[in-house]
């Protein structure tokens, strides 16, 4: 959503190393016996254990949105749930703010869930017996925040997600999109540093889904939360993710920025998703840029473009001119040029 920070801050907000989750009788011993070439189906066949998450590592930095994209059953929910220990990972390290989540005791875990990490669920997970305001205030209520204070905060959140006037209604009186806004407000109410989204918009109609994505993008420009976002919709991943991990059979197949994935899918599995991607929205000028032949002058044009601009933005005037357009960086140094042909090539490649 926001451009990746140029200089990486000191420590990641979330850091996962070699996380495994195996379902079955003897998960730990199974992990040791698994050979890399064994597929998940083979492991199930021979050992009766289901590998939910298979040696996954990733970092998410403050203010970044990390999207995990994969088909149903690929282990996304299991992974995101193990971040706040709603599911206990079998092995590996999950570090949040310098602390290993997997080593936390019950008290520390409560603290983590109450103040640091909030979650938004696919089927909303609202409490049907509580009014919108009591749903939103739930996190504060279990913290022991006084009624007046928590209602004030909840009202603010309800307003933030655009549901003013619905506070005294019950969830079932709201449409799906509105219910998920409640889910979002509830997660935001405790002001967590980290937000976990498990396919939050999958249950919504396409139009509403689009609207909710825009809403999240809008909120993120003011909130700068650290987000792990799960989806099975590649276009959604492209829209929201600073970085995207493609997950299959419990493993990360490829991790990268949207542009990296689209330009450089490393397996057929990834390219199956990227080939229909809206390239103009994902690729930047950099992807269409050609070097200026040595000795040749910098092309002159009354347009100039920045390397980080999306092709979508430059297309109108590239199409209208026959001459090359120079690409200048922040220091006005010429990096190369683009023209109609180079942009067309980048878009159809």
């Amino acid at each position: 959503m926001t451009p990746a920070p140029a200089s990486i801050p000191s420590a990641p907000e979330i850091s996962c190393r070699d996380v495994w989750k195996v379902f079955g009788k003897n998960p730990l011993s199974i992990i040791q016996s698994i050979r890399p070439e064994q597929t998940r189906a083979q492991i199930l066949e021979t050992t009766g254990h289901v590998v939910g998450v298979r040696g996954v590592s990733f970092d998410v930095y403050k203010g970044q949105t990390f999207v995990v994209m994969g088909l149903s059953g690929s282990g996304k929910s299991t992974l995101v749930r193990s971040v706040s220990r709603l599911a206990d990972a079998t092995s590996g390290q999950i570090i949040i703010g310098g602390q290993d989540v997997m080593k936390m005791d019950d008290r520390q875990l409560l603290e983590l869930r109450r103040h640091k990490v909030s979650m938004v669920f696919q089927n909303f997970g609202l409490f049907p017996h509580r009014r919108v305001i009591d749903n939103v205030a739930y996190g504060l209520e279990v913290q022991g925040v006084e009624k007046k204070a928590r209602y004030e905060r909840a009202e603010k959140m309800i307003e933030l997600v655009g549901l003013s006037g619905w506070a005294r209604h019950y969830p079932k009186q709201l449409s799906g999109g509105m219910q998920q806004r409640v889910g979002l407000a509830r997660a935001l109410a405790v002001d967590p540093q980290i937000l976990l989204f498990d396919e939050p918009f999958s249950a919504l109609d396409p139009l509403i889904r689009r609207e909710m994505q825009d809403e999240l993008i809008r909120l993120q420009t003011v909130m700068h939360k650290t987000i792990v976002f799960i989806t099975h919709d590649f276009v959604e991943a492209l829209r929201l993710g600073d970085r995207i991990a493609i997950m299959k059979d419990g493993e990360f197949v490829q991790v990268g920025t949207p542009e990296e994935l689209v330009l450089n899918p490393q397996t057929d599995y990834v390219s199956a998703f990227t080939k229909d991607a809206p390239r103009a929205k994902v690729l930047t000028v950099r992807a269409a840029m050609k070097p200026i032949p040595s000795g040749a002058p910098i092309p002159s044009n009354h347009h100039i473009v920045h390397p980080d601009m999306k092709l979508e933005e430059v297309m109108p005037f590239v199409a209208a001119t026959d001459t090359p357009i120079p690409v200048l960086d922040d220091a006005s140094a010429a990096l190369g040029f683009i023209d109609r042909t180079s942009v067309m090539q980048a878009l159809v490649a």
Partner: protein
Amino acid sequence: MLGSKTLSAQSSAWMRVALWAGVVALGVGIVFIAQTQPALLEKFPETWNLGLRQPINDFQSWVIGHRSSHPVFAFFFDPLSDLIDFGLRRVEDFLLITPWYLVVLAFGLVGYWLAGWRLTLLAVGGLLFCGLVGLWEESMQTLALMSVSVFISLLIGIPLGIIASRSAAFEAALRPLLDGMQTMPAFVYLIPVLLFFGVARVPSVVATVIYALPPAIRLTTLGIRQVILSAIEAARSFGSTPRQMLLKVELPLALPSIMTGVNQTIMMALGIVVIAALIGAGGLGREVTISLQRLKVGDAFEAGMAIVLLAIILDRLSDALSKYDFTGVGRRQRVLAGVLAALQLPAKGLAWLVCRIAPLAGRRANYETVYESLAQNLFLINSVLIVAALWLADALAFHSGGFPSALNIRLDIPADAVVRWMRDNLYEIGGSPFGTGPLSDFITLQMMNPLRDLLVKTLPWATVILWVAALAFTASGWRLALAAAVGFFTIGLLGMWEAGMDTLSQCIIAIFFTIIIAVPVGVLTSRNDAAQMVLRPLLDTLQTIPPFVYLVPVIMLFNIGRVPGLIAAVLYALPPGIKLVDLGIRQVPVETVEAATAFGSTGWQTLFNVQLPLALPSILVGINQMIMMVLSMVIIAGMVGGAGLGLEAVTGLARSDTGRGIEAGLAIVALAIVIDRITQAWTTEK
């Protein structure tokens, strides 16, 4: 893989051969014994008797002798029963001191609050009936007994249900206990309860609590287990402690199910009112039993109707409570509620009062928020205030109290007349060989006696056991066969073989009649909505009437003996049977039926080729239920001359021969369990 499969197939084939060999050997053995030692098979050998009776009776004497001195009584049973007695008396006094019209008004208002004016009408009409037939005091006594019993059941049941929902081990330990409580005839524990809580009406409260406890536990557990997982996960993700989870999420969401449990608990408790009367519960149950003993049909009819009406009122009220939408969503705007809502003054006053009082308790209260939460329940608050005000006024000025005896209708006279007429005219219609008398004789002489003689006299006991085991084997397998054999053998060991076989013969006949009536009627109502419309209310009523009530006219018509018990059992078991057959056929998917029709099946072909086969599982469940209900009537049959185990149990109770009563009770349980397991295996097999 393949090898082990053939191996297991082989070994099971060997098992079969071995089993049949065993059966044949046993048969040969029986014949051999019959020839060499005929006496051993003729009667179940008395020397094998477990000899429970004497120790139990000794224990009873010991209890009676030590009741005043032993610490178990001084420090446990006596204080407990004093406490129950104290509570019961307070509730009863309260209901009797309260002017009758206020009780009626309060029920009417609650009915209106929960479901609207129809329920008000039912509650007011029903309670007025109780007063008008001169049974106001008895009704209030029964109501008090019910309230206290149900309250205690919930007090025990809900926490146990919560624990069971938390711990699978606890639930597993609880389940056989609950199963036992539900299949065991109440009589079996009435006796020990009477022994330990020997004060007036306390034993009946305890017995009612035991009887009504299982649904309270089961539905609490079920309700919590059914709470949507997503809500639990969400609550967990926000850092709820287990306690917060329970109080803020699980219990509120389990409330409808718990309320259904309350409803069932109430219905169970009402179902035992008459039986509880036998051990001193007083109230309406006592009226029924006394009238029954004196064969005063009219009086029994009035009291029976009062029980039925109370049952219906409490059923509908608690049912409405279980469906009541406390979230207020979709709550209907009711006319009267609107009128009363216009009277916001009481709520405002109350809010004001709360704001004055709260600081005294060291808490801050905001008038607006207090009023807002009160305003949501304006109707209820106004109702309570109105009733309270009237109560005060009455206490100061009128002192109304009980139902005025001047207001009285006598239903007993016409009821008596009807029964007399029936007896005079239907017993032997015009001196012909038709009528209830000859019918009764026919059933007794041509059906019951031969079957009983077959089981008791003709067939050696070992053969009967072998047959039952064989039946169990074909239904399920050798485990059940073994269990069934042990169960029946136990009946013999208890010294109840003859009584048990007598009871078995009566049950078989009753089941036969129930099935040949229920299945065709169920088929009819499933295919004919008009028939269903007519039958439904009839069946519902039949299900709420305590069997004692229709026993009286049945006895008048058929004489004391085994037939009234049979008829009572059939009447008791019919409604659920008919309903399950009907439901089973109706649940056959419409598409399947349409497909059959599309291929040109006639209505009958569709019925026999499609609907009945597909409805079979449900019909079989219905048959299992009918059989269990017939069995639960054994005791009542015993009370009206049905002989068999019921008579043994009743006699044991009446003569303070606790040992005999318990032996008979255990034999009933053994019989019930064997028959239930066999029919259930048969149900799931097909």
